[in-house]
C-alpha cells in the first residue's frame, strides 16, 4: 500500500472510530490531544490497530507516538507499508 493511501485509510478509521471531523487530523497535530484519548479510549485504539492493521500494540509503542505523522510512520513500519 502506498504511504498516501495508508494515511488516508488511517485518517478515515480514526475519524470514524473516535467520532471526529477528518479535516482536523493533520500530520503535525498531537495524536492523543486531538483524539481526546483517555485510558479507556486507548482500548479502542489498541483494537483499531489490531483489527485493521494486524499488529498487537505494546505499552512501549505509545511512548514514541506524539503526532499523527508519528502514528503514520509507526503503522507503516509495522505493516511494511
Amino acid at each position, binding site marked *: 500500500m502506498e504511504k498516501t493511501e495508508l494515511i488516508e485509510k488511517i485518517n478515515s478509521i480514526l475519524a470514524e472510530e473516535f467520532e471526529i471531523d477528518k479535516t482536523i487530523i493533520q500530520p503535525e497535530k498531537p495524536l492523543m490531544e486531538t483524539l481526546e484519548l483517555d*485510558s*479507556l479510549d*486507548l*482500548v*479502542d485504539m*489498541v483494537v483499531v490497530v489490531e483489527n485493521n492493521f494486524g499488529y*498487537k500494540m*505494546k*505499552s512501549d509503542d*505509545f511512548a514514541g507516538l506524539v503526532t499523527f505523522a508519528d502514528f503514520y510512520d509507526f503503522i507503516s513500519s509495522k505493516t511494511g507499508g
Partner: protein
Amino acid sequence: MLWKGKSRGGSFGYRFFICIIRRFGVKFAYFFLIFIVVHFIPFAPLATKSNWKYFRKIQKFGFFKTVKYLYINYFRFGQILIDKVAVRSGFADRYKYEFENYPAFLEKLDSGRGIILIGAHAGNWEAGENFFGDYANRINIVMYDAEYQKIKDILEEVLAPVNHKIIPISDSEFSHIFQIKDALDNHECVCFQGDRFIDEKSSKVMDFMGRPARFPIGPFLIASRFEAPVAFYFSMREPGMKYRFIFTVAEPRKGHSGMDELMSLYVDSLEKILKKYPEQWFNYYDFWYE
C-alpha cells in the same frame, strides 16, 4: 461523593487481628469484634451515615432493623477482614465452601479466550483464591494503585505470598491496558471490581436497587472491545464459617451495545446478591444519588 481510591482498614487493625488469630484462633478474633464494632458506629461517622441511608432508603428497612443491620454490617466487615487474614495464614481448612455455577466459569476460562471476572465490594472475593487450585496462577486482579499499595504494604510483610497477580491502575500511565490485553491473550482471568470508579467521566448512571447510581464503564468496555467472555463473581459469607462462591456467566455482544448489556446484567446480578445478603454491602460512601 466519589470513592477516593483507598479502602477502609488501617495497618494497626490488620496487625492486631493477625496477632490474635495466630495466638488464639479465628473465633476468639470474632469475639473481640463484638466490642470493636460498637466503636465504629459513632467513630466512623461518614461510613455510618452512608450505611444508614443504604439500609433505610435503598433496602427500605425500618428504624430498628436499620440499627440492627448497621451493627451486623460492621460485624460482617470485620469478620471478613479476619477471614481474609485467616485464609492467608493457613487456616483455610476451618471454613466450609460451596460453589454455584463454577463449572460454567471454568468452561469459559478454558475456552481459550481468557475471561473477565467482575465482582463488587460485597462479600469477600479474596476468600476463594485458595480453592481455585492451579487456576489461581492464572488470576490477575486489577485495582487502583493507592488501594494496591496499601494492601500490599500491610499484608505482604506478614502473610504468605498470594498466587494471583496484581495489575495496578495508575492515572499517569496506560500500561494496565496492555497488561490486561496480554493476560486475556494468554487465556488468563482478569478480575475487576465493578462498583468503584474515581473519575465520573468514566462512569455511567444505572438504575440500581430502584435509584440512580454510578458504575465504572472500564471493566465492561474492556470486556466488550476485547471480546472477552465475562462472568460475575461474588463470594458471600454465610453462617457456620461458610462461604458461597457465586458465578454468573454473561456473554457480551460485539461493539458498544455489548458494554451496555453487560452493565445491565451486572447490575441485575448485584441486586440479587444484595437482596439475599443485604448486610454485606461494603461501599462506605454515598453510592446513590440523593
